[in-house]
């Protein structure tokens, strides 16, 4: 009798131990999940990996009669591009702005779908030596649409004469 009262069998203790650890892990996960930013999806994929599939080319068009110049862009891939982060490099300094492409004919803002080209009118600061372009995509967090800058994309570099 005394022997039987000694304690639980090793199997039960192990199961109890594991169950406790699993329950604790779930509780900590549910608590910590609030601090982790929600991942942005595009379709059913993480937007970071969709960025790797973005392909575009760009060309700079100097328009001498006006203060504003044009950057022409073409989507050579299969990912819709919502906008670009345009970086102007001058004397070791860089200024960045978000620019949405426009329809080449009408000038309406457009999303660059596969194969589509557009133009961006930009006010290039005097002394700019280089312009960089990084794509901005639209993804979703739950039901909400959010913009995402593809920071790890090689982008496009335009050297200004």
């Amino acid at each position, binding site marked *: 009798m005394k022997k039987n009262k000694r304690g639980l069998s090793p*199997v039960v203790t192990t199961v109890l131990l594991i169950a406790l650890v699993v329950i604790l892990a779930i509780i900590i996960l549910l608590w910590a999940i609030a601090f982790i930013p929600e991942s942005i999806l595009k379709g059913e994929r993480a937007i970071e*990996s969709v960025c790797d599939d973005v392909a575009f080319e760009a060309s700079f068009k100097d328009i001498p009669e006006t203060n504003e110049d044009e950057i022409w862009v073409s989507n050579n891939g*299969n990912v819709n591009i919502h906008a670009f982060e345009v970086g102007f490099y001058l004397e070791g300094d860089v200024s960045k702005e978000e620019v949405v492409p426009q329809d080449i004919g009408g000038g309406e803002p457009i999303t660059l779908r596969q*194969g589509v080209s557009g133009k961006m009118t930009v006010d290039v600061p005097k002394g700019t030596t280089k312009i960089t372009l990084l794509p901005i995509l639209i993804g979703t967090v739950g039901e909400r649409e959010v913009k995402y800058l593809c920071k790890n994309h090689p982008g496009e570099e335009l050297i200004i004469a």
Partner: protein
Amino acid sequence: MRKINKDKKAVSLMLSYVLLVLIALAVGTLIYFWMKDVIFSPGETCPEGVSLIIRDVSCSGGQITITIANKGTFNVHGIIVRGSDDPEIAPIINLKSIDSKITVAETLNMFTDVSGNSDPLEPNEEGEYTFDYSTVLPGPPVKITIGAIRTQEEETLVCERTFITRNVDC
């Protein structure tokens, strides 16, 4: 009695190991299936062996006729054609076909037969296609770019690695 006790201990240990491994496997499998779509699923892409070349170009009356050959190992279902009338600027203006062998869907020129069914350019096959530039370019093109389009798994894909640019004399 001692013998029986020893047996019981062995079974308990074995069971605990089996349970431990099973639980670890079950949790691992659950996490894998939960995360695999988000992390691992690659987007649909064109295969490596898709390739087009421009055999010949001729211009007349605001139209440009391009002879294209499929030098790859896969069917090509359509093309993107862009032109530029400025030698300093990359061809970016999309040219639309006026050819009966092509159905235009926005900027995508899809190869079709007379009934409108897909009629891909097969490997080593050549095709001559006419495009209008007079309505979209101020002057005759000095450079053109072409890129292949493929339809696979019911998806239309632009093959980014197939884009080539050539100077033309119109």
